[in-house]
């Protein structure tokens, strides 16, 4: 299990504060600086697509794994160097097989994690995406891989070596709950496509989670980035709509845990037990530079960040205000932010001219 004492004691850059503000805004207990997401942060992805039977399932799992690989490479600044794809038996002689780095077996996983451990630096981010079948419950919950299946506890032990890195785990397998719960740890975002061991059917969650990343469909707050919370919400809503359209009761209910208590929240949000970390956990690399900005522009940008932070703080305290007062204050902040942004853009335009 991951140690809760993780602490990387450097100050966040001003730009990174943007993402972390909601946490500050809600006066959380001071804690380690998870998901600081600086321009220096390197991000890695490990995609493990387990074996299956039947052409339909094989095609589906392969398509999900390859799509995810391509979306990360195309839209989120990853490359084949930073993505490790373990697929079934590792055969590369299939269409698109050049993406595959190895087999989804115990040795392949261990090797991939060892390679990663040798490369990552403190504060880097690793996203693990599991596709395939799961089985069992609680400690016996397993992810089906080639050869002997792996339990959640065994997989958690393999991840222990990454205590200085931020980690997101998206487990989209059937019966994923018990396995996912074993991976819970402070400072880690764990997403499970099912909420209980009884949800044993192949979920469609993965399809919509990948769709959330594709073209940044899940970008709810229009900052041109997709947080894990946004992707989760997008996928969850679409899964519900899919089952409703089919006229079926949903046999899967995804949950998210990011406070390390191994209890998955079905409706995570910044004011819920889970959701705060997922909101600032982005899958892409932030590229921000103030180098070319004039002093005036820097001042305006700082003001924009300060105003944005105030919006987050006010939003986090919505329940403390009368409705009318809340919106009056919100309007004031947002108008100020809009005007400042406009001035900033004008200033940038002048520089460009």
């Amino acid at each position, binding site marked *: 299990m991951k140690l809760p004492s993780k602490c990387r004691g450097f100050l966040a850059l001003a730009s990174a504060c943007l993402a972390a503000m909601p946490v500050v805004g809600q006066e959380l207990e001071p804690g380690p600086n998870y998901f600081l997401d600086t321009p220096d942060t390197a991000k890695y992805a490990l995609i493990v697509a387990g074996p299956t039977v039947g052409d339909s399932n094989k095609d589906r799992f392969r398509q999900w794994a390859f799509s995810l690989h391509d979306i990360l490479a195309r839209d989120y600044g990853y490359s084949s160097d930073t993505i490790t794809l373990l697929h079934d038996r590792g055969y590369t002689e299939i269409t698109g097989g050049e993406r595959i780095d190895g087999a989804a077996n115990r040795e392949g996983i261990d090797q991939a994690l060892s390679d990663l451990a040798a490369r990552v630096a403190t504060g880097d981010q690793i996203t693990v995406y599991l596709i395939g079948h799961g089985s069992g419950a609680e400690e016996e919950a397993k992810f089906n891989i080639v050869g002997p299946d792996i339990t959640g506890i065994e997989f958690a032990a393999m991840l222990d070596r990454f205590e200085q890195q931020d980690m997101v785990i998206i487990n989209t397998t059937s019966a994923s709950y018990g396995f996912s719960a074993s991976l819970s740890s402070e400072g880690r975002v764990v997403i499970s496509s099912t909420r209980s061991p009884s949800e044993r059917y192949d979920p469609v969650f993965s399809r919509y989670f990948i769709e959330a990343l594709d073209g940044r*469909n*899940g970008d*709810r*707050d*229009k*900052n041109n980035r997709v947080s894990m919370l946004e992707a989760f919400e*997008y996928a969850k*809503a*679409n899964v519900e*709509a899919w089952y409703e359209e089919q006229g079926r009761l949903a046999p899967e209910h995804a949950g998210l845990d990011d406070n390390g208590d191994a209890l998955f929240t079905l409706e995570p949000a910044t004011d819920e037990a889970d959701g705060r970390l997922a909101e600032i956990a982005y899958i892409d690399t932030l590229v921000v530079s103030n180098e070319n900005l004039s002093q005036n522009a820097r001042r305006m940008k700082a003001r*924009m960040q300060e*105003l*944005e932070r105030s*919006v*987050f703080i006010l*939003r986090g305290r919505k329940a403390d205000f009368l409705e009318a007062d809340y*919106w009056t204050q*919100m*309007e004031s*902040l*947002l*108008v100020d*932010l*809009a*005007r400042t*942004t*406009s001035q900033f*853009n004008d200033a940038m335009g002048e520089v460009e001219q």
Partner: protein
Amino acid sequence: MIRKNTLSVIARSLSLPLLLLVSQLAQGQADTDIGGSPLFRGEELMRSGSYAAAAEMFQMADGLDRNEGIVGASQAYFLMGNYQEAMRICSAAVDDDDYGATQLISTQLAEVMRATGRSAEALEILRAVIDEQFEPPVRTLVQYGSLLQFVGRRAEAVPYLDRAIQRYNNGLVFSSEDVTMVALASWLLDYFHDANSLFNEATRANPNNLEAYGLWGDLFLEKYNAADAERTYQEALDINSRYLPALIGMARVVGDERALQRALAINPNSVAAMETYGQLLLMNERKDEAMEYLDRVLAINAESLKTLSILAADAALGERMDEYAQYRDRVNEFSPDNPRFLGDVADAFGNNYRFTEAVEYARAALTADPQYWQGYTLLGSNLIRLGEEEEGKQNLEIGFENDPFNVMTSNMLKVFDTLETYATKESEHFKVHMSERDADILWPYLEPLLEESWDTLTTKYGFEPEYPVLIEVFDKTEDFAVRSVGLPDIGPLVGICFGKVVTLISPDTLSANWQEIVWHEFMHVITLQMTKNRMPRWLSEGISVWEEREGRPYWGRSQGLDLVRAAAQDKLLPVANLNAGFSGAQNNADLGFAYFQSYLVVDFITEEYGFDKLVELVDQYAFIKEDSARFLEVFDQSLDEFDAGFRGWIDRRVEEIGVFVHTEDQPDEGAGHGHGVRENSSAVLAELYNNASLKQHMRARIEDNDKDFQAHLQLGIVLFKEENYEEAKLSLENAYELLPSYTGYPSPPLVLSQIYEQEGNREAQLQWLETLLESLQHDYDSAMILAEAALESGDTERSAYFLDRAIQVDPYRNDVHQLKARYAEVVGDTELAVTEYEVLVKLDFNDPVEARTDLAEAYLANGQLDQAKQNVLYALEIAPSFQRAQQVLLQSVDGGAN
């Protein structure tokens, strides 16, 4: 109420093993000759349904078995319908009217007498048994109490029924048969829960207790619990497939005519079978046959309450009030002010959409007996159909408090819970209850449609209904069904008009043109109110379907193939029997054709005699008279002459259609009795057989008859699958020319459009889609393709038309509103843009920020600055750095200046 006291439980638990022991001992003693015991063999024969043999065998019983043998024989004769013999053998066993000496025989005699309309004599016999015995049999007590209730002496009945229950509570009721009687007593005293438990106990104690199963099924049926009733009757039939009460009960549950015929084959004098059959035949418009059965019932049992109420209701519905009074007086003679009689009449009025009168009779029933709980359900449900929701609900609540087992009552109350979560929208002439989602998404399109239907149809028919008309749109089919008929299964119906109230299934759960349905139902409001709900169903449906086509040229039904098939098979009903097409429909296809034929009659009237004659005919139904008199008045001809004219017209129409319908083809089938796409069943062939053999077969069919529409179509589909587009086009065009109005799925225009799409010929693709939509009103995708193409080409008028066509099928899809918003921006209709973006805010759960910002921009363009600001604040609350939204915010606070 039964009391499960410890003593009685102990007593029974002790006595049961004792009884078993005694019985086993006795069985052991008689083991050698048990096969020869007439009583034992008689019971076996009874259980197997061999009633005649059982009667003979029972009469061979002697000694201690003699009396039981006589009762058994009488019961066997009774089940065969030989009531005289059933009574004779009992009477012969009673010496000098000493009923107390032969308690069970006398009780059996009284039961047969009651069943043959001699309740007064039956009462005397039962009274004598009870008076002469310190502890009369449980059966006698319960039969006496039941009969006292039947004759209206409800208060007097209570002590006798109570005595039976007390005996059970005291642990003195042992046999399954007596527990059954205690169950009946509990039922009669409204202890429905206890009755249910006791029937359960009785059938556990003796799994072959047929009487318990039969009565238990009746209890379930009285409470509208059809599933449990059916299960219980089936359990009885599994033991004895000739057990009459279960056969009849089953027929009442599922309306199975064959079960009744079987019952009557076993017992040609069965009162219950005949009155059930009579009622079923009346519902199916087979009045003469019904009357024969009902007359036979009264000849056997002049006190048959059910039959008298059926006949009284028929008289009252026909406003033959003298005749009604005669039946009422006949009932009053043996059961004064019987609430069930009045309740049955109320129910009959409700079933015939005469809700005002149904309410009056239900009120009268409750005046006669305020403890007639079913009366509150009848009153409540009929009030609701008149739009009197509050009073209706109050009455249902009274019914439920006192009879929570009544499934209909509890279902209807649950719908009120649903309605409490609904929004209410009002327009000039309509009040609409609908879910919040429908209020947001559907209402913007429903409101103008409703008012358009009002303006068009009230003007056309020169009649203005009472308003506001109440419309209830349910997003769950079960709620729609319960609100409409009280039970959660309503078959293929998607909308029902009660005259002042219309219930609809939300278009959210349909794949059909919801606007056509709304138009159809509002037409019913007019015809029903014009005739004070006396309109026959066929004419009301015929006019509503006919007005679909008048409302929009692409609405209505194009069932040319069905018509040709029906004419070839001589399945067209005479006009006088058209209602039977609805009530006797065996499947969706039958029901759909009943609508279609009714429409054809209306089309015939308007085409041959003119629209005014149609209105005259409707007016005729405001008065009570025979159909023949109505047709004579309006058309100056008899019904037969009218019918002959109609058949001639049909023959000409069939000739005009001019296609050949092969016997191997099945009719198309669709949901919603014609509202919705109808699947071309023959197209399945293309999935089942290999292409070569199918092509060969279809070509052979065309060789035989080149007007074989389906053969051309199926051949075209196979060729399309083979990508032999040129030949496919020829076949499909042949099919189209043969029957251009064909709208089944797939149809020639649809497949042709797909061929041209494959070939990249967009112009031809669009042309065929447009052709398709000339006759098909339920196609969303084609309408969207055409709308988008028209907008791209700058033809905004066409784009608006096809956008409307798409919304008529599915207003809940994002893409149609996004396209319509784009259209609104192109034509500069800022108000329309606002409407569309308002809907999109409700629909787009994936991107609320974008949707809110779009809406804010639309408000801004429409000069609604406050709304623009509020919406963009919602967007920026989530995404404060979203610059497009920031611009809208600044414009909204700066007075719209850019």
